[in-house]
């Protein structure tokens, strides 16, 4: 392979990456808009509606305003850590998208076989996402420590304690999915949910409690309301990014919202059948119509709905107290997910223990393509 080939390949990768990273940044801007409008409607007011038609240019105006603000680096802060922290928070949030499959395509018949639309279709995709997304904590911890402000330090400590607590429940709920699918590759997990029964093949049916645990843990991982104690504006003013101004502050928001998109995408892929339609193609009336919609549209539609649920949570629930949050993570989710792993495992092997119990294995085997 000559250097020219390497450069060509690198250029193709760079284009693919930009085709994913730039839309993420843009959708983050418009999720902030959607959030303000949706919460506005839920509270029977209008939300932002002045800048542009229906306020659609509001995120751009916000971005421009933040961009033109002064950069403040406190004199007592650790300069290098302070400067590195926002980038350190954003990079993992974006890089985690590298393994997410956005659908399957033949490029309108250009390729012989279907290709998975992912930058790197790793065989350890789930592990990669878990590993990279938990790196985001370093950005938060660095920001809180480097600011040399009490509010920032307490906010960062709270964020760390909460993120590591909920990561355990999250990991255990993913283990249940892995038992069902028998693979860590994200596109293989989606393929395992294919079938002739539409949404009945999705893992939300046998693993509904794990779906709930995963989504709520995701809410806590991204420091979203009602788990937004690290930001707690009433007592910590803004938590770990209290000292950041303008674009620097916006970078943290960008990372938080990108993490929210990632959690929604992962939930859609692992529990809601990824890019498959909820009804089979031979279903009367709507089946053929559903089948005509491209898979990517289904995946992004499911993701958008889950992001809406995130916003809905914020409009509905009051903030948790820190001891309640820790109790939910350690004393409710952890034993619950752990016992569910045992239940799924026992159901899988019930037929081997006694022939009277084969029906349990048969029922659970409906969702296990490896059987």
């Amino acid at each position, binding site marked *: 392979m000559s250097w020219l080939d390497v450069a060509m390949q690198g250029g193709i990768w760079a284009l693919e990456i930009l085709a994913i990273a730039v839309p993420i940044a843009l959708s983050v801007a418009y999720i902030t808009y959607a959030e303000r409008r949706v919460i506005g409607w839920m509270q029977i007011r209008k939300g932002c509606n002045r800048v542009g038609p229906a306020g659609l240019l509001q995120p751009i105006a916000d971005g421009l305003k933040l961009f033109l603000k002064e950069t403040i680096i406190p004199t007592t802060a650790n300069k290098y850590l302070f400067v590195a922290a926002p980038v350190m928070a954003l990079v993992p949030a974006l890089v985690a998208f590298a393994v997410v499959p956005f659908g399957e395509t033949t490029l309108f018949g250009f390729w012989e076989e279907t290709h998975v639309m992912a930058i*790197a279709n790793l065989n350890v995709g789930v592990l990669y996402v878990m590993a990279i997304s938990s790196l985001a904590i370093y950005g938060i911890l660095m920001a809180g420590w480097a600011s040399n402000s009490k509010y920032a330090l307490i906010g960062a400590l709270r964020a760390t304690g909460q993120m590591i607590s909920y990561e355990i429940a999250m990991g255990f709920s993913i283990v249940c999915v*892995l038992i069902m699918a028998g693979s860590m590759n994200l596109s293989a997990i989606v393929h395992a949910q294919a079938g002739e029964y539409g949404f009945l093949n999705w893992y939300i049916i046998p693993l509904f409690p794990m779906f709930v645990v995963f989504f709520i843990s995701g809410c806590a991982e991204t420091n979203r309301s009602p788990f937004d104690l690290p930001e707690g504006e009433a007592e910590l003013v803004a938590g770990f990014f209290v000292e950041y101004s303008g674009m620097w502050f916006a970078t943290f928001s960008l990372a938080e919202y990108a993490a929210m998109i990632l959690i929604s995408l992962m939930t859609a892929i692992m529990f809601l059948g990824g890019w498959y339609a909820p009804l089979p193609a031979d279903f009367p009336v709507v089946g053929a119509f559903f089948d005509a919609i491209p898979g990517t549209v289904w995946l992004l539609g499911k993701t958008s709905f889950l992001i809406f649920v995130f916003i809905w949570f914020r409009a509905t629930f009051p903030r948790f107290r820190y001891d309640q949050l820790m109790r939910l993570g350690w004393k409710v989710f952890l034993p619950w997910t752990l016992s569910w792993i045992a239940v799924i495992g026992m159901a899988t092997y019930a037929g081997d223990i006694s022939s009277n119990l084969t029906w349990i294995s048969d029922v659970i085997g409906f969702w296990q393509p490896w059987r």
Partner: protein
Amino acid sequence: MGASYLANEYAPIFVFILIALGMGAAPLVLTMLVAEQNPDDEKLSAYECGFEAFEDARMPFDVRFYLVAILFVIFDLETAFLFPWAVVLDQIGIFGFIEMMLFLVILLVGYIYAWKKGALQWE
């Protein structure tokens, strides 16, 4: 599954890391060049409610955060064992399943101990 496999599968991720670094750093550098900078002593002091900060902000904090971190290491390690086990459960069969259940029971004893000791209690 050799070196070329690793290079082909993981190289795009390194390109992605470089691009993400650029996407993170470029706006921060640009905003410092474009926006008007007008610093003064008061503006650059650490935020404190109403008075000047008279001591370092790195105060001692609750030991429970440390305890949570220790417990996290134990249980996250358990997750690290469970991940590969779940993927090959179809090959290792009922023997592998029972073995992992024994492992989980041992950890469960530790979990109950931590609970009884009040390590999970946040007051």
